[in-house]
């Protein structure tokens, strides 16, 4: 088998492509297709029979839901930890805190949809922790997933918003960002799982092992993720 299909959370845009590139250079002749989306969307699709072999979620809840439903095999494994930042393409955010988002100069605040994008859920946690969730409601615009949310900010349509740190630190990213203290939200235990569809795919298992290897972890770090010392089963 030379071809597998991977479903990945939208925050992995870039980093996963890079990892597959390096994997490919070591395993010529194999093909790994990636589909990005919000973790919730991908989970629902897998539940409905979408033929993905591996699922990279932005958190650990969605992979666990798949395991519970019998749509995935084995335990979800954490491959990285994700953090959120406040990012703007046009403003200097030095010293800006989440509390200050109520200021009138921020007319539009972009977040991912908390209903099915883990990054959105974390953004909501941070806003609630700051006590401004209700106050900023009229300014909130939601992206379907974190990548679309980043687009709202990148194109200037929203002056500011919450994105994965990886987006704000990517080489092409313009503007400035400030880190949101991890005390204000639960950092994302980004986990992946082998799906029912991929249960017998040797290539999938091999690729999953590769992702946990040191080379891949280096790439994650390079793109702004945090990598746990040991890729141990979550919980």
């Amino acid at each position, binding site marked *: 088998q030379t071809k597998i299909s991977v479903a990945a959370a939208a925050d992995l845009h870039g980093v996963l492509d890079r990892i597959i590139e390096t994997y490919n250079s070591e395993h010529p002749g194999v093909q790994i297709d990636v589909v990005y989306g*919000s973790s919730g969307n991908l989970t629902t699709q897998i539940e409905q029979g979408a033929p993905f072999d591996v699922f990279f979620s932005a958190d650990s809840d969605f992979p666990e839901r798949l395991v519970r439903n019998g749509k995935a095999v084995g335990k979800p494994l954490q491959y990285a930890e994700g953090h959120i930042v406040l990012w703007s393409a046009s403003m200097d955010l030095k010293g800006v805190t989440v509390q200050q988002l109520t200021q009138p100069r921020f007319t539009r605040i972009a977040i991912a949809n908390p*209903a099915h994008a883990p990054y959105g859920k974390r953004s909501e946690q941070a806003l609630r922790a700051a006590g401004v969730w209700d106050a900023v409601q009229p300014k909130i615009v939601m992206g379907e997933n974190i990548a679309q949310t980043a687009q*709202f900010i990148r194109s200037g349509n929203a002056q500011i918003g919450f994105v994965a740190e990886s987006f704000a630190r990517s080489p092409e990213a313009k503007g400035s960002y400030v880190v949101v203290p991890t005390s204000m939200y639960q950092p994302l235990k980004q986990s992946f799982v082998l799906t029912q569809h991929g249960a017998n795919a040797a290539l999938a298992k091999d690729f999953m092992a590769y992702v946990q290897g040191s080379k891949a972890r280096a790439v994650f770090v390079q793109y702004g993720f945090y990598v746990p010392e040991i890729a141990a089963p979550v919980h």
Partner: protein
Amino acid sequence: MGAFSAADTQAFLLTLRLAATVTLLLLAIGMPIAWWLAHSRSWPSRVAGAVVALPLVLPPTVLGFYLLLLLGPNGWIGKMMASMHLDTLPFTFKGLVVASMLYSLPFVVQPLQGTFEAIGRRSLEVASTLGAGPLDRFLSVIVPMSWPGIVAAAVLGFAHTIGEFGVVMMIGGNRPGETRVMSIAIYDHFEAGEFAQANTLALSLVVVSFAALLAMYLLRRKAKA
């Protein structure tokens, strides 16, 4: 079956408001355009025909992509609006109206054009000899004679706007009461795994729509008989 939440009701009403606004505006501008396209054989009208039809073949995501760039604060329309101290259009109801009008224009113009082309010149000539000027002829001959086409245009325009998802996804921002229309709300429920709520919402839309369509069909046949 899940409950019909206040948020869902809001999405429902917003959708109807959007579709109604867009349909009325489109009928108003679509009729003269369709008439022109139906009866002129000049070069400009042919090119215009193709331009009007363009949104037909553009995926909503393409349209949304360009609209976001064009209407956003860095786009030239966005800059123009900002210089006039107007809000930029993305993430607003007005923005959805503009986008949906662009998107649904051909769906209104095409059926109108089809019926207009089917109306022979004779009826218009007769009306002229009976003293009816151009506008009068339009209202007293063309409109009643092309009634089925107008109904079709309105239904297509309305429906296409209700069903619009891609463009709204790109430039809506999912704002309750402003840009969170039904299609988005259902998608959200679905993605969140809230099948019951998705089902309630979808079913209510199906029932209401079907009732409206059926009524329209029965009325339309009555009018013909």
